[in-house]
Each structure stands twice: as structure tokens, then as C-alpha cells.
């Protein structure tokens, strides 16, 4: 059992535990912080697979920008444990059973697949040099379209949150 296997299982255990804590914790601020922990472990997985560009972008965009936005909104609304709406016990149990059975079905379908190895620690697929070449050669038009998407999202957010007269 090599060092990469040990790192993989430690990261996976932290990711799953943090995700469960995010779902069950009553306070929304704690949920946001647990989700940030999940994003950091996923970035750890990217580093383990030598996808350096995506690891950095994941930290900057998800843990840095999106989760700060969530934290800002949660604190702006002053949400805490007392104001947290909870479903009743029976509906929660039904939700857990439904999601758990979906997980069981998918995992049992996974058991019949072939064993294929993932390249860890090396390979230049995830380096910025390689990704930039692919992005600006093959995916130039989607890249330009995403700027239009950002502009429309920006205008949309401003228009929605403007207090109507």
C-alpha cells in the first residue's frame, strides 16, 4: 500500500465526513464552513491526480469566491440555529432512505465494472500549458460565450436584487 493510496483514503474519509456534517449541522454558518472543508479535500484530490490548474481554480473560485458569497448572504440574513426551519422526523427519514437507496443502486452497479487504473502524481494532462493550448485552440468559441454568460449573470443579479419602485 503506497503513500498515494493512504493519502487518497484519508482525503476521501475527510470529504465524506465533512459532507455529512454539512448536511446534518443545524447552524447555516457551520454548514458553509464544512462545505469549504469538502472543497479543500477535493482540491487535494486534484493535486493527487496532478491536475494542478483545476486544484488552484477550485480553491480560488469555489472556496474563495462562491463560499464567501454564501457566507456573506448567511451573515447578512442573520441566520442561526433558532431561526433554522427543520422538516419533521418522518420526512427526513424518507429522504435519507431515498438517497441511501440511490447510493446502494449506484454502488452495486459499480461492482460489475472492470478495473482500470488512474494515473496519479505524474502526467502533463492537467498542467496549465496543456490546458491552455486545448482551451484556446479547440474550445475558443465556448470560452468567448462564457464571457457573455458572465455578463448576463452580472446584469441579471443587479436587476433581480434592485428594489422595484
Amino acid at each position, binding site marked *: 500500500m503506497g503513500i498515494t493510496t493512504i493519502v487518497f483514503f484519508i482525503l476521501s474519509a475527510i470529504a465524506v465526513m465533512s459532507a455529512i456534517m454539512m*448536511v446534518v449541522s443545524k447552524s447555516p454558518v457551520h454548514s458553509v464552513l464544512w462545505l469549504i472543508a469538502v472543497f479543500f479535500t477535493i482540491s487535494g484530490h486534484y493535486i493527487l491526480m496532478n491536475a494542478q490548474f483545476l486544484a488552484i*481554480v*477550485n480553491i480560488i473560485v469555489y472556496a474563495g469566491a462562491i463560499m464567501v458569497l454564501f457566507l456573506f448572504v448567511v451573515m447578512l440574513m442573520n*441566520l442561526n440555529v433558532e431561526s433554522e426551519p427543520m422538516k419533521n422526523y418522518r420526512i427526513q427519514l424518507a429522504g435519507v432512505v431515498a438517497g441511501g437507496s440511490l447510493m446502494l443502486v449506484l454502488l452495486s452497479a459499480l461492482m460489475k465494472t472492470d478495473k482500470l487504473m*488512474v494515473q496519479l502524481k505524474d502526467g502533463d494532462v492537467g498542467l496549465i500549458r496543456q490546458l491552455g493550448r486545448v482551451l484556446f485552440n479547440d474550445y475558443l468559441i465556448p470560452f468567448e460565450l462564457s464571457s457573455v454568460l458572465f455578463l*448576463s449573470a452580472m446584469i441579471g443579479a443587479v436587476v433581480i436584487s434592485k428594489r422595484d419602485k
Partner: protein
Amino acid sequence: MDIRAYIGLAIMLFSIGIIGVLIRRNAIILFMCIELMLNSVNLLLVAFSKMHANGVAHANPSLASDAQVFVFFIMVVAAAEVSVGLAIIVMMYRNIHSVDINFLNRLKN
């Protein structure tokens, strides 16, 4: 590392996200669970990309890079989606002073 370990991890994270959507009523937590599901799919795409880099794409490495470019675009769309979605949630909070999605059933009438 076996690809099945990555698929199993992604399935677990995705199912936890689904359970969160089903059992919570806070709109912001629901949104965060959707982000968790998006991230599990991203992880799976990167794992498949590295699986291809190990196998068929030795001659042409740009074949395996496509999945990582896809992940980049998913992140772009997620950022745009979060900005608009949180604006909608803030507007809803200003109108009904709650983030409880059960109060949104007045959209029916």
C-alpha cells in the same frame, strides 16, 4: 489507484447532496447541496481524464485534457448560477422575511 474508488467516492458525495436537498428546508443549504453535487461530478470528470491519460491517450494527450476543460466550464457556469441564485434568495428574504422553501408554495396560486 483504481478508477472504481473514485467513482465510489463521487457516488457517495452525490448521494449526500441528494439527501441534503431532500431533508433540509433552508434555501441556502439546498443551494449548497447542489454545489456539492456539481463538485462530485467535477471530481469524477478529472478522474476519468486521468484514466484516459493512463490508457488510450498516450499518443495524443489533448484527448485527455478535454475533460479538464469541461470541468473549467462547469466552474464558470456554477459561478454565474450562484450569483443569480443568491440574488433570488436575497429578494425572497426581503419579501417574506424567511428562507424557508415551504413558504414558496404561494407560487402555486
